[in-house]
């Protein structure tokens, strides 16, 4: 959902591109952090660990982008005016898919989806930009994202798929207030 349908993905300045990349990585990390914390609060340490790990990677990437941006004056863009495909930054694993009993394979599948979207975003920019430097950076980032996708694939393979009853909780919910 976006308010203004833009010429999606068309980014022609390095500053604008890095601003997008920085936000993408930051929001990815923030999102993973939030989900990881939430899983920890809900006594799902294994999945919490996975997301917090993802968060760490996200923070690293953000640092990398920040480094690339040193010396440049990145524009401020309000969250709703980024050139994201659907209004939300592509690598955010959305909280609404989460479940307190979710199993690692499911968590990683969600992360995979986010990484794929990030890849698609960078690849899209690379394909559409008129600025060669932007294209170069976008291609580089897209390559990194495909590497993440590959790594995640390997990671997923290590976990059994969730069983049919994975979300079965025999107990009633609590009523804290």
């Amino acid at each position, binding site marked *: 959902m976006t308010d203004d349908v833009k010429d999606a993905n068309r980014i022609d300045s390095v500053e604008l591109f890095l601003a997008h990349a920085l936000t993408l990585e930051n929001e990815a990390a923030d999102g993973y952090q939030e989900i990881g914390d939430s899983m920890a*609060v809900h*006594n*799902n340490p294994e999945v919490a660990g996975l997301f917090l790990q993802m968060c760490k990677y996200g923070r690293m990437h953000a640092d990398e982008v920040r480094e690339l941006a040193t010396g440049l004056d990145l524009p401020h863009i309000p969250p709703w005016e980024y050139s994201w495909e659907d209004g939300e930054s592509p690598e955010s694993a959305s909280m609404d898919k989460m479940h307190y009993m979710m199993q690692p394979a499911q968590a990683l599948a969600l992360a995979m989806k986010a990484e794929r979207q990030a890849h698609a975003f960078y690849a899209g920019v690379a394909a559409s930009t008129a600025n060669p430097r932007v294209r170069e950076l976008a291609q580089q980032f897209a390559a990194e994202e495909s590497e993440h996708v590959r790594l995640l694939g390997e990671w997923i393979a290590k976990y059994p798929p969730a069983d049919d*009853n994975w979300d079965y909780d025999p107990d009633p*919910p609590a*009523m804290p207030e």
Partner: protein
Amino acid sequence: MSGDTVSIAISGAGGAGVMTAAQMLLDAAAKAGFYGLMARSSGPQIRGGEVAAFLRLGSRPVECLDDRFDVMVALDWLNVERFAGEIVLDGASVVLCDADAGEAPERIRASGAQLVPLPLQETVKNLPGGRMNMLGLGLLTGLTGLPEDVVGGVVAKGLKKRGQEVLDAGLAGVRAGMALVAASEVPACRLGSSPPAVAPRWNISGNEAAGLGCIRGGIRFVAAYPITPATEILEWLAPSLEKVGGVLVQAEDELASINMIIGGSFGGTPALTATSGPGLALMMESIGLAVASETPIVVIDVMRGGPSTGIPTKSEQSDLNIALYGLHGDAPHIVTAARSIADCQFTAQWSVHLAEQLQVPVIVLTDQSLGQSRAIVDRPADLAFIGRREMPVAGVTGYQRYALTASGVSPMAIPGIPGGEYIADGLEHAVSGRPSSGNEDHSAQLDKRARKLELFDYGDHWADVEGDGPLAIVTLGSCSGPVREACARAKALGIATRLISLRLLAPAQEDRFAKALEGADRVLVVEQTHSKQFYRYLRAHYDLPRDLKVLSRPGPLPIRPGEVFDCIKAWS
């Protein structure tokens, strides 16, 4: 094991099925002829939070948790420190835990309990569809010596709607748990022999018992707004009322619910609401209206930790003050308190009877620890209390709604009775109901409203008085269980006590109390509040011996029998 009971704690993260396992264990114990009690505690999360179930099983009725636990089954260690204060362990306790779950938390290790790591996760993984809680149930089946077939029957009943596969896995889990115990060195914790069940037994929570008591007393109209820990009363009442021709309305707030029941009762239908502290506070103005207009209503207050939003999931008795004194003006009303889970039924039913008989609001106090715990109890005897309102006959002439009778109770017309037309009023009024600010009318109506409560014969139900020792222990509500048990322990040591557990808090029963206290030279007051509310109330209304002590503590931890017993012993 305290005498003839076994105390068990089960803990684990949400999703592990702690509550289900605990309930099945309670059911199985009941089927096998034992009595029991089950309470619970949980974290602030709605789902997935850490949960602990506390059970006490035995061959005699159980009215409270014990001081300590014989057995703890920890399905995992996640956030289990939350329950540190509640799961009291000692050198004689056994803790069964998962060998792969890492080190036990510091406080558990420091307790001196014997830690028995078992391959729980591993066992479950090897059972197709296996679940930790069924394994835990199996462990406890093995430890307590409950018959496998009884446990199996309960499991079958609980899981059958989920299909044969799940059921088989459940049963396999139970067997695997029993096998783990059999193969280990864990000291058994057997439940003696089960007493023959003379009468049918019930498995009931305090909230359900209160609901049943109300319907038995005649309640057919309920309006309420959900609030923890009273909601289960409403959850039980909504479908049950429907079956017996009554109705529950979910109101927009507590102001609406209290006034709706006043309207329903004005229409002649015995009416009730249930709430907890914050909701009760919102109702006070209109409870005053029921006093002034002499409209019978019953308000159940399931007390929780206060003040303000406080601790919604934990028990306390600190709404005593507001229940007794929270109305503006001189507003005599009745306050009762249920003494045990089963007594929630008795007290609720009696309260409906009193409300209807005396055309007055009755506030029934129970608390979270009664309301949200379950017990196996003997089916209560049938009670004769039914709400019966005195009414004028149809076609009455010169009817005066607030006539000054000797008893203070004036016949109350209900709409539909020709000749009875009157206007109920919260303004001070003359006998006719017409507003009056006159001195004589005000005095006469204040007198009559006080008189009807004073003259009524509440019989022996005002309190449970047990024993005749020189040390009287005066208590109320959910403290009665621990006090009774402490008295029994004292008796075993040859210390004679007497227990006075009040069911009727207001109006005060000066003569009866004095009589109950005759020959006692010392009083110990036991209550669960911070500011000694019950003690202050007793002082205000009763003559107490100079030699007096108060054991008063706020929630969230329940008063334990041992604490009371220590007080008794130290004073003997």
